[in-house]
C-alpha cells in the first residue's frame, strides 16, 4: 500500500486504472475545476475523465509495454535469424538456441494443425505466442514496483500505470479482431463469396426438400453468424479474463501482505502476531500464486495461438471438403 491514507478500494482501483491519453470533449469540467472550452487531448487524471474520453483514448501504458515487448522480441528474433543464417555450420547456443527451439515448436504445431499452404500462418502463430507470452509474463513482476518507478520518474504520486498489457481488453481484442479480419479475408478468397454464404446458410441443418431447406436457411444463418462472431470475442475475452483475474488475485494478495504489515506495526501484541502471520502468509501466497501463474501465462498464450491457427485453418477449408 502506498501510504496509510488510501483505502483498500482505492488501492485496487488505482491498480486497475490505465494511464490514458485521450480527447476530453468540450464542456468537461477538469480535475482542477476549470471547464474546457474545446476538445482537448490530454492525460486522464481520474477514472471519471477516462470515462468522459469515450472511444478516443489511448491506454498509453498497455500500448507502450506491448510495443516495447514487441521491439524486444523482434530484435531478439532478427538477431537469432541473422545469427542462424550466418552460422549454419556450427551448433546454436544460448539465446539463439532457445529462440530456435521456440520457432521449431511453433512450426510443428502449425504443421500439425494447419494443412493448407499459406506462408503467413506460421509467422502469425510465432508472433502471437511469443508476444502474448511476454506480455503475460509482465504479471510476474512485483505488482507495485514498476508503477512506483513510473510514478517517481513522472514525479506524480497518483500516476496510473498498468504493467500487464493483456489485462487490457483493448489489447487482447485488438489482436483477436486482427485475426478475425484475416479469417474473413481467407474465407472470402478461398471459398469465394458464394461458397462463404453457402457455408453460413446451409449448415448445420440441411434438407432435400427445397421448402424445408428455405425454412432452414435463416435458422442456419443466425446460428452460423453467432458462431462466427463468437470466435474473435471469445478469443480476446478468454485471454483478457484469465490475465485480469490473475492480476486481481495478485492485487488482493498484495493488500493482505501490506495490511498485515500495518496491523503488525500497530503495537498490540496479538495484533502484532496476527499481522505478522498475515504478512508472512501473504508473502508465501504471492510466491505460490506466481508459480501457478507461470502455467496460466504459458497456457493462455498457447491457447490463443492454437485457436488462431485453427480458425485460420477453418477459413481455408472449402465446404465440400468436410462433408
Amino acid at each position, binding site marked *: 500500500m502506498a501510504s496509510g491514507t488510501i483505502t483498500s478500494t482505492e488501492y485496487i482501483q488505482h491498480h486497475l486504472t490505465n494511464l490514458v491519453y485521450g480527447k476530453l470533449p468540450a464542456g468537461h469540467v477538469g480535475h482542477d475545476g476549470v471547464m474546457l472550452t474545446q476538445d482537448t487531448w490530454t492525460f486522464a487524471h481520474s477514472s471519471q475523465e477516462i470515462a468522459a474520453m469515450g472511444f478516443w483514448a489511448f491506454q498509453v501504458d498497455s500500448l507502450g509495454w*506491448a510495443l516495447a515487448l514487441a521491439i524486444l522480441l523482434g530484435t531478439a528474433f*532478427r538477431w537469432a535469424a*541473422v545469427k542462424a543464417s550466418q552460422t549454419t555450420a556450427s551448433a546454436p547456443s544460448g539465446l539463439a538456441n532457445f529462440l530456435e527451439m521456440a520457432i521449431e515448436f511453433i512450426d510443428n504445431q502449425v504443421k500439425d494443425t494447419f494443412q493448407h499452404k499459406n506462408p503467413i500462418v506460421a509467422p502469425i502463430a510465432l508472433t502471437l505466442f511469443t508476444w502474448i507470452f511476454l506480455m503475460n509474463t509482465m504479471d510476474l513482476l512485483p505488482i507495485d514496483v514498476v508503477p512506483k518507478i513510473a510514478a517517481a520518474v513522472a514525479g506524480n504520486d497518483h500516476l496510473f500505470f498498468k504493467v500487464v498489457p493483456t489485462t487490457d481488453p483493448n489489447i487482447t481484442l485488438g489482436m483477436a479482431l*486482427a485475426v478475425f479480419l484475416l479469417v474473413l479475408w481467407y474465407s472470402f478468397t478461398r471459398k469465394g463469396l458464394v461458397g462463404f454464404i453457402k457455408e453460413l446458410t446451409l449448415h448445420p441443418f440441411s434438407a432435400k426438400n427445397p421448402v424445408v431447406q428455405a425454412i432452414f436457411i435463416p435458422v442456419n444463418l443466425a446460428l452460423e453468424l453467432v458462431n462466427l462472431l463468437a470466435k474473435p470475442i471469445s478469443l480476446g475475452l478468454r485471454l483478457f479474463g484469465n490475465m485480469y483475474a490473475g492480476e486481481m488475485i495478485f492485487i488482493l494478495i498484495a493488500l493482505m501482505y501490506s495490511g498485515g504489515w500495518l496491523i503488525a506495526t500497530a503495537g498490540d501484541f496479538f495484533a502484532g502476531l496476527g499481522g505478522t502471520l498475515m504478512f508472512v502468509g501473504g508473502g508465501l501466497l504471492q510466491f505460490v500464486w506466481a508459480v501457478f501463474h507461470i502455467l496460466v501465462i504459458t497456457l493462455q498464450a498457447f491457447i490463443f495461438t492454437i485457436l488462431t491457427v485453427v480458425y485460420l485453418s477453418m477459413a481455408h477449408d472449402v465446404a465440400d471438403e468436410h462433408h
Partner: protein
Amino acid sequence: MNITATLIGQMLFFVVFVWFTMKFVWPLITTAMAERQKKIADGLAAADRAAKDLELAQDKATAALREAKEEAGKIIELANKRAAEIVDEAKQQARAEGDRILAAAKAEVDQEAHRAREQLRKQVSALAVAGAEKILAKSVDQKAHSDLLEKLAAEL
C-alpha cells in the same frame, strides 16, 4: 473495461509485428534451420559411412594379419624342416667321412702289419739261416735249401 482507440493501435502493432516476422525473421531462420538440419543429417550419414569403412578396414587388417601369421608359420615350418634336413645330411656326410677315414686307417694298419710281417719273416729266415749255419758249422748250400727255408718262413 472500456473499448477505446487502443484497440486500433494494438491491431496496427500486431499487423506490423506479423509483417516484420514474416519478412525478416521467419524465412531467414527456417531456411537456416533447414540448412543446418541437412548438414547435421549429412554429417550423421558421413559418420555412419566412416564407421562402416572403419569396420571394413578393421576386417581387412585382421584378415591380412591372419594371413601373415599363417605365412610366417609356414615359413618357420619350412625352415625347421630344412634345418633338420641339413643336420641329417651333415650327419650322414660325417658318418660316411668317418667310415672312409676308418677304412683308410684300417687299410694302412693292415698294410703296415703286412709289411712288418714280411720284414719279420725275411729277418727270421735270415736269422734261421745264420743260426743253422752256425749250428751246422758248415756252409749250407743256400740254393739247395732255399725251398726248405721258404717253407719255414711261411709257417712263421
